């Protein structure tokens, strides 16, 4: 069995599972946020009316909550959702609630790894499509809707069809001007936004071994954009060190067997990778940056669970150091712990000297919610994950998805720019 199959077999108390088997998996960690949480509360209200008990959660110690999409509240509906969510946590005795502006806070997927809320070998489900992110730690991490999350919170298990796995091998270390974002955009361009639909995407090879944990998280995060059920990387010493730094050493990691099966294996040579953008209006609509005609931009957005981790901010700072931006540029670190490290490392000063605005952690404009949404015809280069029509604001705005290096280089020139071409 491969790692995804092994985790799902263990979670369903089976010796062995095969692709297409339908199982009920026991859940180790479950999360809802300020969009899916109120959605689950609504489902609970419906269930109550049908006479189904919603008195107790299956295990409040395994449930956690984050406030990230509509924070800080821009209007009263969002503010009321936060109050509703806080009451939910209190009423059900939920173990951990990352409150916005109280200690550690930020985007849920970022907190999942920054705070080691999920461990290798576990089944983690959450009410958000980018839950796949956390698979970089060696967990089965999968996004669900409100009804399914309500079922998980009450029963501690959920059905899955065991996925086929696509294996992506990266041979060699990515060049300095290429990031994990370029690699995953290249993959999505090759297989399409439904190229991994219902499947697992596993990454491996020497190029992945060389990658930092933050960079690996970018890969698994974007597997959602290929339609994948989960993205996963076998945990290694880097993951063990990352988790130990966060006080977690007691877990049972799983790795695939030597005869693990994959539906298909894709080979990529790191030395052949180049900076890439996904043009409007799909993450599969890719182009090598240097092959793009001159593309004038109105704005650069560096944020989200995909593109505002510490490593992403370091890449941006490398470009912005001693330079100034030519277009409006917004940088929103993905969690306040990352903001703090960026401050201590001098990155925030580099950003401010470059003339950008540094904002608080929030999903914000990535999902078109608030704090930097785009106007009609505005053109934005963004380190986020999706560029469907209207994703970041007006349905006729245009988002180019790019790596933090490309977004920063483009912010300096005001047009889409390969970081190597910056003077």
């Amino acid at each position, binding site marked *: 069995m491969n790692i995804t199959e092994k985790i799902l077999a263990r979670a369903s108390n089976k010796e062995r599972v095969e692709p297409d088997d339908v199982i009920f998996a026991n859940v180790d960690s479950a999360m809802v946020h300020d969009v899916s949480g109120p959605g689950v509360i609504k489902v609970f209200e419906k269930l109550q009316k049908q006479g189904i008990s919603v008195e107790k959660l299956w295990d409040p110690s395994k449930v956690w909550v984050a406030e990230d999409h509509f924070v800080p509240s821009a209007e009263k509906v969002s503010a009321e959702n936060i109050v509703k969510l806080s009451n939910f946590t209190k009423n059900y005795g939920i173990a951990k609630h990352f409150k916005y502006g109280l200690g550690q806070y930020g985007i849920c997927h970022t907190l999942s790894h920054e705070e080691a809320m999920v461990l290798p070998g576990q089944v983690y489900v959450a009410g958000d499509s980018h839950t796949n992110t956390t698979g970089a730690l060696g967990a089965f991490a999968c996004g669900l*809707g409100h009804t399914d999350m309500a079922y998980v919170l009450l029963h501690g298990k959920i059905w899955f069809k065991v996925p086929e796995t696509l294996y992506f091998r990266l041979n060699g270390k990515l060049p300095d001007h290429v990031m994990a974002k370029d690699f995953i955009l290249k993959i999505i361009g090759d297989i399409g936004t*439904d190229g991994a639909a219902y499947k697992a995407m596993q990454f491996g090879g020497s190029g992945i071994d060389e990658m930092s944990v933050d960079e690996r998280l970018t890969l698994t995060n974007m597997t959602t954009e290929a339609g994948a059920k989960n993205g996963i990387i076998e945990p290694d010493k880097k993951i063990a060190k990352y988790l130990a730094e966060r006080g977690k050493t007691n877990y049972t990691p799983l790795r695939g067997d030597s005869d693990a099966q994959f539906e298909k294996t894709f080979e990529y040579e790191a030395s052949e990778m180049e900076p890439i953008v996904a043009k409007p209006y799909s993450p599969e609509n890719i182009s090598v940056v240097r092959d793009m005609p001159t593309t004038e931009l109105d704005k650069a957005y560096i944020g989200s669970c995909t593109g505002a981790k510490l490593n992403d901010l370091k890449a941006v700072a490398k470009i912005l150091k001693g330079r100034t931006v030519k277009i409006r540029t917004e940088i929103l670190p993905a969690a306040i712990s990352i903001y703090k490290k960026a401050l201590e490392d001098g990155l925030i000063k580099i950003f401010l000297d470059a003339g950008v605005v540094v904002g608080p952690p929030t999903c914000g404009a990535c999902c078109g919610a608030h704090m930097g949404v785009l106007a009609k015809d505005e053109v934005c280069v963004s380190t986020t994950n999706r560029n469907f029509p209207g994703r970041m604001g007006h349905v006729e705005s245009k988002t180019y998805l790019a790596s933090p290096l490309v977004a920063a280089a483009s912010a300096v020139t005001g047009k889409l720019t390969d970081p190597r071409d910056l003077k």
Partner: protein
Amino acid sequence: MKGNVIKYEQDNIDTDVILPGTYLKIHDYAELATHAMEGLDPNFHSKVKEGDFIVAGRNFGCGSSREHAPIALAHSGIKAVLALSFARIFYRNAVDGAFLLPIEIDEDTLKDVSEGDELEINIDNNEIKNLTKNKKYPMKPFSELIGKIIAAGGLFKFNP
């Protein structure tokens, strides 16, 4: 189950156009319905009728996990979406929440069906009748589990 077709022939109709992100803070189902398909077809809300079906291309409902998407469609009156394929979270949200039926059709059916056609869907014999054109189309049978959840009326009424 009988209804009329609202057709969007394109692939990858994503959740950002089915229910734009700015409305994710809303959890009132009737209010969500007023914004259904707003990113793709601003006239949807005025033309949709109770019992209608959406017919679309590949990978319908891709993108976010927002259950708002099938909720907004269902509370607009949509009883089924007939598409070449579905994104996984939209599919399970539609079935587990018992909001609407996600029905997989083939390319020929997609081409043949026209806006406004009256269809009759029979999931017991996996058949779609086009009453306007007097034709029959196949539908992909539901898997065993999905069939049982649909028959039960959603995941909470299903006894594994």
